[in-house]
C-alpha cells in the first residue's frame, strides 16, 4: 500500500517567548491526507496553521510527535521530504535580482534534474503559467500577480507528490486569486495531494474535499463539508466554525493568547 | 463646533522633533552601536596604540646585539671612544675580526659599484651575507686615503633583520656623535677658531604651555568631533529619512497638514541633537580616560593637558561645523531611497568633511579670511587657534556668515527633496526619460574611466618614456576608450551612425575659418591674462618646476615631431574622445549646457593637476561649444592644435611672436571669427535628427 502523502501523530510545537512564557502553538495534532485530495486547514489568525505547515515542510522542527510526508519522517530525512514537497507561502519570496527563468533553472538544478530535461520542463512551465512574456526580466520589477505565478511554477517544478500552500490567495487581486483556485483544482486532477490553509470560507467551500478546522493549536474537527454540517447542525460554514469552537472546552486556556511569536506572512 | 486652531509651524516642528527623538531613544540597539560604543572603543584604540608603541620601543631597546668590528686602522683614541660609545648604547657584544682581508675586499667591491647599479651578482651577494655571519652588523673603519687624519666608516647590515637594522642604527649614532666631536675640534683648530662659532643659534619657543597644549588639542579635536558627529548623526539621519522611506511612513507624514520645511527642520533638529549627544558623551569619556592617565592623546607633545577652562569656550567656534555636517547628513540620507543607499552616502559625506579639516595639522597655516570660508576647514582652524589662545575677529565673522549660508542652502535643498510626489515616484516614469538618462550615465561612466586610466596608466607610461608614453596614452589609450564607448552605446543611441555620433563631418568653410581666427585670442587670453593671474592667486611652489631632463628631451626633438606630439596628437585624440564620444553621449541625455559642463569637468580632471584644471576646463568648454555649434569635430581639432602649437613653441622660444605683433593685434581677429561662427548656415537650418 502506498504511504499516505501527509500523516501526523500527536504533533506538538511549543515556543518560548520571553514575555509570555511557553506558547503552545500546536497541540496533539493528528492529521491524515489521502492521495489526490485537497485538504483545507481552516482557522483564524494565530490558530497554528502556519506553524503546522512549516513543521511539515521541515522549516520548523516539532517539539514532540511525528510527521511524515510520503512515508518519509520529517525528523529523519528532511532533504528527502523537501524533494517530494512543493511549498508556497506569502513569505517565500523570489530572489529580486534574478530573472524568472534563472530562478526556475536554479531550483531545478538543485533538485538534481538533468539539464535537457530541466530545459524542457522550464519551457513547459513558462507556457503553462504564461510567464513567458516576462520570463527574462528581474523579479523585482514584476507585479504581485506575476510573482505569484513564478512562485507556483517554482513550487511544482520538480513535480512533487505533495503540495503545501499557506494562505495562497492573500494579497491577490480578483483575477489572480481566481487563477490560483483554478491551479489548485488542476493539481487535484493531476493526482497531487494539496494541503492548504486559509481563513477565507468561500475558498474552503469551493475547493476542499475535506476540511480541518483548527483553533488555538488544536484540530477541532476533520471531514467533508457535509460531514461537518451534520456534526454541528449548522448550514453556513461560519456557524459551523463557531459551533465547533464552542464545543471545545471554553474554560481551558482562558485568557491565553496563542499568537505565534514568529512573524507570519 | 469650533475648528481646531492651526498650530504654528514652530510648534509643529517641535512636535516632530520630539517624536523623532522618542523613536531614536527606543531603538536601543542602534543607540548603543552609534552613540555608546564609540565612547568605549576610541579610548581602547588610543590606549592599545600607545601600548603597542611603547612595547615596541622597549623590546628594541633591550635587544642583545652583536657588532663585529675591524678597526685596526684607527687612531687609538678614536677606537677607544668608539668602543665605549657602542657599549653604552645598550646590550652590545663587540667582536673583533681577525682577518682584514675579507673586509677590505668587500670594501673595494662595494666601492667599485656605484649605488645606481643593479643588484650584485648572486655569488658576491652570498659572500657578503656570509661575512656578516653571526653578527648583526659589521663595522669597518679605515683611514681616508686622500685626506690626512681622516677616517671613513662603513657599517654593513642586513635590512631584512630587525636586529641588524637596530645594530646598524646604533653604530651610526655612535659614529655620528664622534664625527660631530671631531668636526668641532677641527673647526676650533682653524686660525681664529671657528668663524661661525657666534652663529650657533638657540631656538626658544616662548609659547606658553597652555597655548601649546591648546594647539595640540586643537589638532585632535576637529577630526575627532567630526567622526563622533557622523557616528551619532548617521544613525539618526538614516532612521529619520531612509528608514522612514523604507517603512513607508514618510508618505503618511507628508500628507499631513505640515509644510515640508517644517518636517525638514524637525528631523534636522533630531539629527543635530543625536550628533551633539554622541560628541558630548565621547568627549567626556575621552577626557576621563586622559585625566586618569589611561590614554595618551596623540598630538600632545607631553602627556599633560594644562588648559585654562575658559579656553574651552573656543569650542563654541566649532558649532557651525556641527550644524553643517548634520545638515549634510540629512540631505544625503533624504535623497537615499533605502537604508542601504543611505549607508553608502556616508562615505562621501565623511570625506567632504574630514579632508578640509586636515588643514589643522599644518602648523604653518592659520585661520585667514580666505580659509575661514571653506566649509569645515574654517571652524577647525579657528577652533585650533582659539584653543591656542588666538582669536581672529574677521575670520570668525566670515566663518559664521558663510557656514550659516552653506547650512541654509543645504536645508533648503533638503526641503525640496522632501516633496511627496518625488518620493512616491522613485523610478523614472517615462521610458524615454529613462533611456536618455541611460545615455548620459553611459557617457559619464566612460569619461570617468578615461580620467582614471589616464591618471593611473598614462602617467606611468610617460614616466617610462615621455615621448612614447605620451603617444601611447593619446593614440592608444584614448583611442581604445573611444572605440569601447562607441561599442557599448546603449540601444537608443545605436540608431545613429558612428560618424554622426562623433560629429565627424565636414563643417562649413566659413565656420572653419571662423574657428581658426579664434586661436590668437585664445592664446593671448591664457598666456597673458589668465596664467599670470593664477600664479598670483595659486602660486606654484619652486620645487615643482619642469624636470630638466624632460626639457632636454623636448629640445632635442625635431620641430615637426614636437608639433606632432604636443599639438596634433592631443588635438585629434582628445577631441575624438571628449568632444566626440563623451559629449556625444552626454548631449543625447542632458541639456546642451549641462552636457558641456560635465564634459569640460572631465576634460579638466583628465590633466590631473589642480593648476591646470581651470585653463583646461575652460578650453574644454570652448571647444565643446564650438563642436555643438558647428556640429562638427573638425573646428575643435583645428583650434586645439593651433592653440597647443603656439603655446608650446612660444614657451620653448622656438618662435618669436613679439615681432609679429602677435600679442597686440592677434586678439582682434577673434571678432570676425565670432561673427562667422554666429552666422546661420544653410545646413543648420535643416533639421538634424541628432
Amino acid at each position, binding site marked *: 500500500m502506498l504511504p499516505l502523502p501527509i500523516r501526523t501523530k500527536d504533533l506538538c510545537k511549543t515556543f518560548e517567548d520571553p514575555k509570555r512564557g511557553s506558547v503552545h502553538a500546536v497541540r496533539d495534532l493528528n492529521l491524515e491526507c489521502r492521495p489526490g485530495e485537497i485538504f483545507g486547514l481552516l482557522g483564524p489568525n494565530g490558530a497554528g496553521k502556519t506553524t503546522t505547515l512549516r513543521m511539515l515542510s521541515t522549516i520548523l522542527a516539532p517539539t514532540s510527535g511525528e510527521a511524515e510526508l510520503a512515508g518519509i519522517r520529517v525528523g529523519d530525512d528532511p532533504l528527502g521530504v523537501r524533494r517530494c514537497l512543493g511549498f508556497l507561502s506569502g513569505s517565500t519570496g523570489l530572489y529580486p535580482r534574478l530573472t524568472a527563468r534563472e530562478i526556475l533553472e536554479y531550483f531545478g538544478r538543485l533538485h538534481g534534474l538533468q539539464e535537457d530535461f530541466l530545459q524542457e520542463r522550464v519551457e513547459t512551465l513558462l507556457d503553462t503559467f504564461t510567464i513567458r512574456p516576462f520570463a527574462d526580466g528581474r523579479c523585482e520589477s514584476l507585479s504581485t500577480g506575476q510573482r505569484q505565478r513564478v512562485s507556483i511554477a517554482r513550487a511544482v517544478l520538480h513535480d512533487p507528490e505533495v503540495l503545501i500552500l499557506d494562505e495562497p490567495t492573500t494579497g491577490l487581486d480578483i483575477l489572480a486569486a481566481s487563477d490560483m483556485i483554478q491551479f489548485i483544482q488542476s493539481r487535484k486532477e493531476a493526482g497531487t495531494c494539496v494541503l492548504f490553509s486559509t481563513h477565507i470560507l468561500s475558498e474552503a467551500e469551493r475547493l476542499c474535499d475535506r476540511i480541518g478546522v483548527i483553533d488555538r493549536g488544536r484540530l477541532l474537527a476533520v471531514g467533508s463539508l457535509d460531514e461537518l454540517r451534520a456534526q454541528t447542525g449548522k448550514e453556513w460554514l461560519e456557524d459551523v466554525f463557531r459551533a465547533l469552537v464552542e464545543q471545545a472546552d471554553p474554560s481551558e486556556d482562558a485568557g491565553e493568547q496563542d499568537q505565534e511569536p514568529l512573524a507570519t506572512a | 463646533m469650533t475648528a481646531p486652531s492651526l498650530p504654528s509651524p514652530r510648534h509643529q516642528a517641535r512636535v516632530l522633533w520630539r517624536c523623532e527623538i522618542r523613536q531614536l531613544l527606543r531603538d536601543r540597539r542602534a543607540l548603543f552601536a552609534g552613540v555608546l560604543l564609540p565612547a568605549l572603543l576610541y579610548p*581602547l584604540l588610543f590606549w592599545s596604540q600607545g601600548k603597542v608603541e611603547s612595547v*615596541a620601543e622597549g*623590546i*628594541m631597546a633591550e635587544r642583545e646585539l652583536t657588532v663585529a668590528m675591524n678597526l685596526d686602522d684607527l687612531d687609538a683614541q678614536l677606537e677607544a671612544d668608539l668602543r665605549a660609545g657602542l657599549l653604552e648604547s645598550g646590550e652590545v657584544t663587540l667582536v673583533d675580526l681577525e682577518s682584514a682581508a675579507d673586509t677590505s675586499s668587500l670594501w673595494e667591491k662595494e666601492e667599485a659599484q656605484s649605488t645606481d647599479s643593479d643588484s650584485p651578482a648572486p655569488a658576491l651577494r652570498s659572500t657578503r651575507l656570509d661575512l656578516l655571519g653571526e653578527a648583526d652588523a659589521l663595522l669597518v673603519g679605515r683611514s681616508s686615503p686622500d685626506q690626512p687624519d681622516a677616517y671613513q666608516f662603513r657599517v654593513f647590515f642586513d635590512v631584512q633583520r630587525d636586529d641588524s637594522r637596530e645594530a646598524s642604527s646604533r653604530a651610526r649614532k655612535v659614529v655620528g656623535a664622534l664625527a660631530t666631536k671631531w668636526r668641532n675640534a677641527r673647526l676650533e683648530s682653524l686660525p681664529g677658531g671657528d668663524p661661525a662659532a657666534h652663529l650657533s643659534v638657540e631656538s*626658544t619657543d616662548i609659547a606658553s604651555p597652555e*597655548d601649546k597644549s591648546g594647539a595640540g588639542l586643537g589638532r585632535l579635536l576637529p577630526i575627532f568631533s567630526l567622526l563622533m558627529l557622523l557616528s551619532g548623526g548617521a544613525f539618526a539621519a538614516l532612521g529619520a529619512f531612509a*528608514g522612514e522611506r523604507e517603512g513607508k511612513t514618510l508618505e503618511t507624514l507628508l500628507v499631513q497638514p505640515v509644510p515640508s520645511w517644517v518636517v525638514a527642520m524637525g528631523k534636522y533638529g533630531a539629527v543635530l541633537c543625536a550628533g551633539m549627544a554622541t560628541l558630548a558623551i565621547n568627549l567626556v569619556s575621552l577626557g576621563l580616560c586622559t585625566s586618569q592617565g589611561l590614554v595618551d592623546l596623540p598630538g600632545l607633545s607631553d602627556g599633560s593637558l594644562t588648559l585654562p577652562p575658559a579656553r574651552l569656550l573656543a569650542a563654541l567656534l566649532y558649532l557651525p561645523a556641527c550644524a553643517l555636517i548634520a545638515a549634510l547628513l540629512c540631505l544625503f540620507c533624504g535623497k537615499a531611497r533605502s*537604508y542601504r543607499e543611505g549607508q553608502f552616502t556616508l562615505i562621501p559625506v565623511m570625506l567632504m568633511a574630514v579632508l578640509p579639516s586636515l588643514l589643522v595639522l599644518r602648523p604653518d597655516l592659520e585661520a585667514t579670511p580666505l580659509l575661514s570660508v571653506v566649509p569645515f576647514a574654517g571652524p577647525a582652524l579657528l577652533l585650533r587657534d582659539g584653543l591656542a589662545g588666538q582669536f581672529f575677529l574677521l575670520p570668525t565673522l566670515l566663518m559664521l556668515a558663510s557656514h550659516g549660508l552653506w547650512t541654509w542652502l543645504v536645508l533648503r535643498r533638503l526641503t525640496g527633496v522632501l516633496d511627496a510626489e518625488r518620493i512616491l515616484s522613485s523610478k523614472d516614469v517615462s521610458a524615454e526619460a529613462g533611456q536618455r538618462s541611460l545615455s548620459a550615465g553611459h557617457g559619464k561612466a566612460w569619461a570617468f574611466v578615461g580620467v582614471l586610466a589616464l591618471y593611473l596608466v598614462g602617467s606611468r607610461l610617460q614616466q617610462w618614456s615621455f615621448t612614447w608614453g605620451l603617444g601611447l596614452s593619446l593614440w592608444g589609450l584614448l583611442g581604445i576608450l573611444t572605440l569601447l564607448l562607441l561599442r557599448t552605446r546603449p540601444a537608443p543611441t545605436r540608431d545613429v551612425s558612428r560618424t554622426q555620433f562623433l560629429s565627424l563631418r565636414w563643417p562649413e568653410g566659413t565656420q572653419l575659418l571662423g574657428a581658426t581666427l579664434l586661436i590668437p585670442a585664445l592664446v593671448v587670453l591664457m598666456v597673458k591674462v589668465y596664467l599670470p593671474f593664477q600664479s598670483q592667486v595659486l602660486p606654484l611652489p619652486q620645487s615643482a618646476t619642469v624636470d630638466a631632463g624632460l626639457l632636454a628631451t623636448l629640445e632635442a626633438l625635431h620641430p615637426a615631431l614636437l608639433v606632432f606630439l604636443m599639438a596634433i596628437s592631443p588635438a585629434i585624440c582628445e577631441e575624438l574622445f571628449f568632444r566626440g564620444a563623451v559629449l556625444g553621449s552626454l548631449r543625447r541625455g542632458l541639456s546642451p549646457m549641462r552636457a558641456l559642463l560635465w564634459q569640460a569637468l572631465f576634460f579638466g580632471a583628465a590633466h590631473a593637476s589642480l593648476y591646470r584644471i581651470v585653463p583646461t576646463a575652460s578650453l574644454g568648454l570652448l571647444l565643446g561649444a564650438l563642436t555643438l555649434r558647428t556640429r562638427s569635430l573638425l573646428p575643435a581639432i583645428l583650434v586645439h592644435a593651433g592653440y597647443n602649437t603656439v603655446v608650446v613653441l612660444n614657451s620653448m622660444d622656438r618662435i618669436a611672436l613679439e615681432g609679429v605683433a602677435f600679442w597686440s593685434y592677434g586678439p582682434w581677429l577673434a571678432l570676425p571669427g565670432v561673427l562667422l561662427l554666429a552666422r546661420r548656415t544653410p545646413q543648420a537650418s535643416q533639421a538634424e535628427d541628432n
Partner: protein
Amino acid sequence: MSTPQHLSPLLGAWMVTKKELTESLRDRATVIYAFVLPICMYPVMFWVMLQGALVLQGQNEKTEVTLGIAAAGVPALEHTLATEALTVALADSLPEGSESAASDAEPTQANPLQLAWATKPLDLAQAEDWLLTGNPGDSEIDAGVAAAPDAVLFLEPLTLLHTSTKSASNLARERARARIQKHATSLRLQAARAAGLDPADLEPIKIVAVDLAERGAKGAVVLASLLPLMLVVMAVLGSFFPAVDLTAGEKERGTSETTLLLPLPRSSIITGKILAVGTLSMTATALSLFALGLSAENLLAGVASKVDVKVAIPTIALFGAIPLSLFFSLFVSAVLTACASLAATFKEGQALLGPVQMVFMLPAMIGIIPGIQLNYTWALVPIVNVVLAFRALLMGQTLIGPYCVTAVALCFYAWLALRLALHLLSRESVQLAGKTLPLARLFKTLRSTSSTR
C-alpha cells in the same frame, strides 16, 4: 520523467555560491563597493593629498613674514654681529641651493623674510615681550615695519624666539634658521680655503651604511611594516557589506524561507554564502592593492623625484601570499557571515558588524610589534598569525613549518566559524526572526535544542 539525482553537498554549495554571486553582481551597490570604490579610493586620495601639498607649499612660499632683530645694550643695527654679511644672509630671499631655472624676466621672490631692526636696546625679556605684544614698553620700532614681528632674533647669545602655536612664527623661524645656517657654512668654507685646507677636511669622520641584502629588500621591509595590517583591514572591509547583504539582506528581501526550502543541507547553503562573501572580499582586496600600488608610485614620483625606492618582492612572498590570503579571507568571511546572520535587517547587521571589525583590528596591531616573529606558538593565534606570516613572507624568510601551521590554523578557525554559523542559523529563532536576536539571548540560543537540518 527522468529520476533526479541527488547533488553532493559540495556541488550544492557551489551552486549556491554561483547564484549568490550572480545576484550580488547585479546590484549596483555591491558593484560599486567591490569594484569601483577600491579602484578609485586610493588614487583620488593620493591625488588630493599631492595637489593639496603643492598648493599649500606654493602659498607658503609667497607668505611674507617679519623677523625682528634686537640686541642688549645697543640698538640692533650697531651690534657687532650686525655685519653686512649677516644682513645680506638674512635678507637673501631665494631659497638655498636652487638655481632658479625660470625663464621669466623677473625672478620669483620665494620665502620672503622682512627684517625689522629694533632702534632701542632690548634685553632678552623685553625681546620676548616684543614678540608677544609687538611693542615692548615704550620702545620705538624702525619705521619701515609697522607690524609686530613674527619671530625675534636676539643677538648675543644668538637666540631665535618664536611661538610654535602661530603659523607665521614657525615660518619665520624656519627661514631665519636656514639662512643663518647657510651663512655659517659659507663662513667656514671661506676660512678653510684661507687656511689652505680642503673643505672636506672639516668633516674628518664619515660613515656610510651599506645594506648587504638584495636591492629592493629595503622596499620590501617598508612594505612589510605597512602591508600586512592593510591587508587585514581590506579583507575585513571587503567582506563587511556582502556578509550583511547575503544574510540580513536576504531576510529583508523576504527570501530566507525560500532558501530554507532548497533540497540541500543547511551546511551547504551556509558554505555557499561564505564562499560568495569570500570571493567578493578577495576581489575588492586585490583591486585595492592594485590601485594602491599604481597610485603610490605616482605619489612617490610626484613628491620626491629622485628618490629611488625600488621594491623587490621576494618570489616566496608571491607564492605564499596567495594561499594565505585565501584562507584568511575564508576565515574573515565565515566570522562576519556568522555574526551578520544574527541580524534581521540590513541596518541591524551593519550596527552589529561595526564592533566586530574592531575586534579584528586589535590583534592585527600586535602583529606589527617588531621583535615578534612567526613561530609555532604565534602561528596558532588567529589574525596575529596572518599578519606575522605576511611580514615574514615579505622579508623573504622561508619558515615553511610555521606557514603551514598558520594555514592549517586559519582553516580550522574558518571551519569553527562555519560550524558556529551553522549552529546559529539552524536555530529557528534566528532563521525566521522578525527581529534581530538580542545578544543576551545568544547563549540561550546556542544551547537550545530545537533545530532543523
